[in-house]
């Protein structure tokens, strides 16, 4: 098993004919993801790679193919509407890769999704991968390996780095989820911890956070009360100056709040193993008797 995505995922790619969308749709197909449809307004009737039907709207794509998940690769200014469109078509899992979505748009998107019982992962995220079963987004397939460690992260390439360390040590992953680096995101650490805790095939959890906000602190409190599986965590940005946005829109220390020190202290209080550097992930998991 895995969380959020698996072999039953029937994926529609929004923006499938665009530069990023077509590149990653191909990669997802090669990985074995069940890509059932693509959407680009005005390109309905075409076939992508000679096999995936392209539709003008998500509603048509869902009706014709039974798509139950969507991934969005459209430019930021169209991203909010693409999310609304997926939700209106009855899609229950929407993964938004697009970076640069205005935060005010997200404040309107979130209640809309809640009313329709749809989950959003992202925006500004690399998506998710359940190794050997399904990949939705842009996480490189070859660095992953099937296994029992659940990975959740606010970052992209830093996540790859840590997945790479795990795979090299023979520790496979159940699902890796990049939740995104923006201030307002659809799926947070707590959602992922709850899903991993409930997943019988996940034995341990790796949490990769960064400066800004209080998501990690809240997740640590949640973990102490509700998660029995071992967790190790990393916080990026220990050397980041306050008041500066470190690449990710959400990675900013405002006033005295959102520092790495504060998050690491919350991890320690919750009994989460604190990684001082990415290479600590394997030894810390081994200390917790996690083997594969």
């Amino acid at each position, binding site marked *: 098993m895995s969380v959020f995505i698996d072999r039953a995922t029937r994926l529609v790619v929004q923006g499938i004919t665009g530069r990023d969308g077509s*590149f990653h749709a191909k990669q997802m197909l090669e990985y074995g993801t069940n890509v059932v449809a693509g959407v680009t307004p005005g390109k309905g009737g075409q076939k992508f790679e000679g096999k995936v039907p392209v539709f003008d709207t998500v509603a048509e794509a869902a009706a014709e193919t039974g798509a139950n998940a969507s991934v969005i690769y459209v430019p*930021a*200014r169209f991203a909010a509407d693409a999310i609304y469109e997926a939700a209106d078509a009855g899609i229950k899992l929407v993964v938004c890769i697009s970076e*640069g*979505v*205005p*935060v*005010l748009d*997200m*404040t*309107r998107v*979130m*209640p809309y999704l809640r009313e329709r019982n749809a989950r959003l992962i992202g925006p500004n995220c*690399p998506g998710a991968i359940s190794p050997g079963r399904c990949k939705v987004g*842009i*996480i*490189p397939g070859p*660095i992953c390996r099937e296994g029992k460690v659940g990975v959740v*992260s*606010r*970052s*992209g*390439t*830093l*996540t*790859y*780095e840590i997945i*790479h360390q795990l795979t090299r040590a023979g520790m496979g992953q159940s699902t890796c989820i990049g939740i995104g*680096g923006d*201030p*307002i995101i659809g799926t947070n650490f707590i959602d992922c911890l709850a899903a991993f805790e409930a997943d019988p095939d996940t034995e341990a959890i790796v949490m*990769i956070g*960064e*400066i800004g*906000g*209080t*998501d990690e602190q*809240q997740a640590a409190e949640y973990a102490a009360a509700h998660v029995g599986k071992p967790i190790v965590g*990393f916080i*990026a*940005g*220990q*050397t*980041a*100056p306050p008041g*500066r*946005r*470190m*690449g*990710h*829109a*959400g*990675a900013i220390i405002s*006033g*005295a709040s959102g520092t*790495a020190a504060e998050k690491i202290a919350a991890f320690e209080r919750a009994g989460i193993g604190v990684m*001082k*550097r*990415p*290479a600590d992930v394997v030894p810390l998991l081994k200390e917790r008797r996690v083997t594969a």
Partner: protein
Amino acid sequence: MNLHEYQARAVLKAAGIPVPDGDVAATPAEVEAIARRLGGRVVVKAQVHAGGRGKAGGVKLAADPAEARKHAEKILGMTIKGLTVQKVLVVPAADIASESYAGVILDRASQRPVMMVSPAGGVDIEEVAAQTPDKIMKLPVDPRYGLLPHQAMRLGFFLYRDLAQVRAAATVLQQLYAAFVTVGASLVEINPLITTPAGQVVALDAKISVDDNELERRPHVAALRDVSAEDPAEVKARDAGLSFIKLEGSVGCCVNGAGLAMATMDLVKYYGGEPANFLDIGGSSNPDKVVTALEIITSDRHVKAILFNIFGGITRCDDVANGIVTATGRTGLKVPIVIRLTGTNEDLAVSILQRAGFSALTDMDEAVKRAVELAGRAA
């Protein structure tokens, strides 16, 4: 992106909020003329993107136009938190009966805009929040409906007793929320929101931060950017699509991805070095970006070693390798460089680098250790 106070005042004024008269100036002579027009007794305020302007001597009360000119001579050109003052705002000295705070922030936890008011204005609101949190009222706004009239009234009653002032404040708060949405802000603040002895409610100071992601669809807001108030290297980086922040150390870092860039800086520190910068070349694989990145890093004379840390996913390692070869061929390198590449097209990258006389590592820790060592040796 932060607006200057004089720009923020203009935004509030356009939204209908009462703002005192005043004008911005770049020379002492202009300041004197504005002071004269405003009736003599004025406040001269440095326009820089830094808090604590008053404490730094950047805000001065003048009794007459001549004194305003003298203040301007001192304030213009002074440095506050590393930023040179190029403009001052001149406003009439206000008679203040009470000082409050009013603001709107994008709140991550509630995922909504949150209105905040406090009768304890004129001081740092974070201090109020820490010491007397009961003096702050917060109200999350449903962005689909905006700030409703009764909500604005409730906030008004938290600030004032006098019904006319409560109504005036409620109007200001609705205008403030509208301004927040109009410019695509992540924060707008009036601190202080004053009452005058005559009972009027007036915005005396204004602060606005705009969500950078809003700028593309709001060119009139993007046009307010004052590049002269920013670090030139950071401006150059932004124009090239890079994310760059200058720091004080000696190890220049060039990384793909913000999280990995932060983790690389942290690892430099872990191994006893100090990062010279944060630099994220982003997810695309454009050799030109790498060239610009190297130009920016090498223009910092404190940099004693350069460290590349690339985890190829969408970014292709061979593109980065080509960028490194092009940039070093064009500008020459005076400091040692350590390159770590792994992931997409790693083998291709290694052979490109080897042909140009560079070696590449695949382990992040090893690369960081070596860069720290080289920077230490050069110091």
